[in-house]
């Protein structure tokens, strides 16, 4: 366990180096974007660049940034001038709620559909499930989100309330109105691939000798499926679901944009478009930490699913 945790550090360090370097490969910087439409000339912008210390050697900039990180000071956004950690913190509740709701929808759809499909292989229900999962994989979530919004507006003259994310505790009804649709859209999109994976791994497991033995011993079908097969088929599904959760927690830019939810995804997109390097670096680092933690949690869950796997 400690080994795994300690392995996270070089991974995160490596990602910080990569991000720091890659962002500076993109042509232009935040001042070029800020003053793109202004009459300021090249010299005036260079002067501003100097004021902000953006013309320092790259290794100096990296050292200053890492030094700040170690003091838990990631600096300020060059665009908004607010602390970058504060910008993430402001958006995290939206992203967390959306991610977990979408994840729950994914699991609630994917696993029952995958199990149903596998247990009724080649029957009409399996055919229907497979058709729906292919459709779900093929249909882009941004298109689905747009269709849903426009359909609701046209048919019933309603869309989720705009103008502010309601608190789940203080105004749960409005909050759920704002989150349920994007969660369903995101969840449905991710559920399709997860359902297919569930079906396929279950069909593989069901062909294993120990499952055949269980059937031949006279165990009830239900007991074999749910007591033996599904649990063992879940390992690759959990791995895949874990990566889905990681992506969701990193922010889903297009869905946030369409449903006007100010989450981490939009923050990252803005940081890229604005060449807001401090914000982008911390966002990518955040994503890396999230993924690393999710992977750790997934690995730890194997021990629960498979008693043969134990961690020291």
């Amino acid at each position, binding site marked *: 366990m400690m080994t795994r945790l300690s392995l996270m550090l070089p991974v995160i360090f490596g990602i910080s180096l990569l991000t720091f370097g890659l962002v500076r490969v993109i042509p232009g910087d935040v001042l070029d*974007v800020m003053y793109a439409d202004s009459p300021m000339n090249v010299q005036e912008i260079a002067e501003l660049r100097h004021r902000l210390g953006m013309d320092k050697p790259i290794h100096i900039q990296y050292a200053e940034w890492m030094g700040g990180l170690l003091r838990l000071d990631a600096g300020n956004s060059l665009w908004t001038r607010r602390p970058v950690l504060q910008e993430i913190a402001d958006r995290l509740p939206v992203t967390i709620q959306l991610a977990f709701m979408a994840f729950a929808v994914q699991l609630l759809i994917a696993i029952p559909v995958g199990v149903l499909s596998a247990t009724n292989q080649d029957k009409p229900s399996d055919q229907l499930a497979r058709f729906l999962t292919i459709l779900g994989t093929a249909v882009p979530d941004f298109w689905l989100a747009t269709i849903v919004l426009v359909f609701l507006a046209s048919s019933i003259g309603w869309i989720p309330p705009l103008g502010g994310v309601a608190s789940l505790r203080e105004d749960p009804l409005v909050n759920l109105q704002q989150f349920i649709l994007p969660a369903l859209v995101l969840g449905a999109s991710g559920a399709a691939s997860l359902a297919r994976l569930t079906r396929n791994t279950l069909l593989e497991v069901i062909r294993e000798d120990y499952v055949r033995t269980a059937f031949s011993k006279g165990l009830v079908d239900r007991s074999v499926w749910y007591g033996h097969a599904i649990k063992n088929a879940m390992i690759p599904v959990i791995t895949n679901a874990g990566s889905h959760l990681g992506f969701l927690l990193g922010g889903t830019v297009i869905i946030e944009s369409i449903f006007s939810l*100010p989450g981490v995804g939009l923050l990252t997109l803005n940081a890229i478009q604005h060449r807001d390097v401090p914000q982008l670096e911390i966002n990518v680092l955040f994503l890396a930490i999230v993924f690393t933690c999710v992977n750790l949690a997934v690995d730890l869950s194997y021990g629960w699913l498979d008693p043969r796997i134990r961690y020291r």
Partner: protein
Amino acid sequence: MSRHRLGFGLLDALVVSVLVASCGPAAPPAAEKQVAKPAAEQAAPAAKEAQPAAPPAAKPVAGTPKNGGRFSVQVVDDPFDWDPTDRGKSLPQQWGIGLAYESLVGFKNGPGVPFDAAQIQPELAERWEVSPDSTVFTFHLRPGVKFANIPPVNGREMTSADVKWSFEYFSRTGEFKDKNLPKGQYDWMFEELKNIEAPDPQTVRVNFNKPFAPFLYYAGSPFIPVMPHEIYDHDGHFHDRIIGTGPFQLDVAASQKGTRWVFKKNPTYWQPGKPHFDEVVWLVVRDDAAAMAAFQAKQLDWVGENMTTNDSEVVRRANPQAEMFEYVRVAPIHLYMNTRKQPLDDVRVRKAISFGIDRDEFVKVFTGGKGGWALAGAFPDTFSQEEIRQILRYDPAESRRLLADAGFPNGVEIEYMYTPKSLGEQHVQEMELLQAQLKKVGINLNAKPFEYADLSNRRRAGDYFMSHTAKAIEGDVDSYLWTWHPTSRSNYAGVNDPALNALLEGQRRESDAAKRREIARQAVRTINVDQVYGLTLYAGVDYQFVQPWVKNFAPNFLFPGWPVVDSWIER
């Protein structure tokens, strides 16, 4: 829900999805609900004699104003910086400045006032005098105007000292001269400023070293408003706060970053009984389709940011009761040519480009025939459409002849910068149409994609050949014409023509409005015909929609955002 509505709902959803996916221009139906026709003549600039003290001019009223209600509008991003000297960071910033601040003079707006009209009227100054040589501008302030009652300004009276302070801040002169501040982006509105005097609390005098006729119109620019020094004294900048004399003031407590920005009615606003709305609320809606859905669901009272002809058709069909405003843009699609680079340094090549552009095709393809021709450096009233069609010609044969004359009988290749995403699909299509048209006359445009910031940077540094974008202009034709002066920071064409310089400087110095207009016309001819230092592709069409319960609303090109002082809600 009836099957009927379900069916149409699904149909609408599919139509929108196809349009969102394709985003190609298409000719809309001919008849529209309301068309704001361009003004035939611009109102004459204010004369040199004193203006009478009068309230803002009366406008046609559509019923009796009712107080109350919220006006909800779409913005696509958060404002991040309220300093008017820092443009370009965020479009909503300009709109907020237009709501909370005011300038010395204003511009007429409302139903009955054409979109492209620049008709000066009193605002914070109730009258003014301009010296015969346009070197001294004396403004007499309206007494009793107060800043909003928000700390640290706390509702005190606005005086001439505030005007002096604000103008010195924008121009980085006076007390700001040695403060080493970043260059003010609107300091060019104070070209050749000598000093600013405030002889008494109600009088401010702006003195120039040389005649500067455009200044009266620049004094109405929302980007040089009257601001309270207390914000700067307290914070050292204007980035985070906005407190002015305007009809609506930002309510920070009611706003939520990323989703809404609330501007509440200023209870101490100087126009009695106005504004009528209780609040103007910006809803941050980044996606165009989502904004259209929000308008249809009546969560938005206004939509119109970056609306194409296709989008307008979708909104119109889905909202037959909404009021639509359709107007030809004042700022045309400008074609930049770097005259410092071969072969564009040869006037024959530039003329060949001009003769090779079929502007009617641009107007037809991108505006369904509703747009217009335009001249680089000109406002819509500088030349009429008939005159423009005589000045500019589509003549492919002449184009080929000129190219051959310039030493390119077999054609020529020119690099062309464009941006594939930032300016929308239409920008790319405009490039493609231009490419196709010029190919017919032997000019091969080698199109290269760049990020918008990179494109702007290259253009600024003179590291480009050709590109096109909409031109940013202010309230006076000088803001467009001066582009070709060698001292202009926007002189991306790299022009330094002594004859043209004389005309450009002449129109700034000429106090007589009619003579000034004639000088401007000569300069425009030089730019577009004699030397072809600049061209336009066409003047596009913009659309805005408001809900049927929004009354007395009409956009104007000089108002960033929405001119809403006289509008009201009537449900």
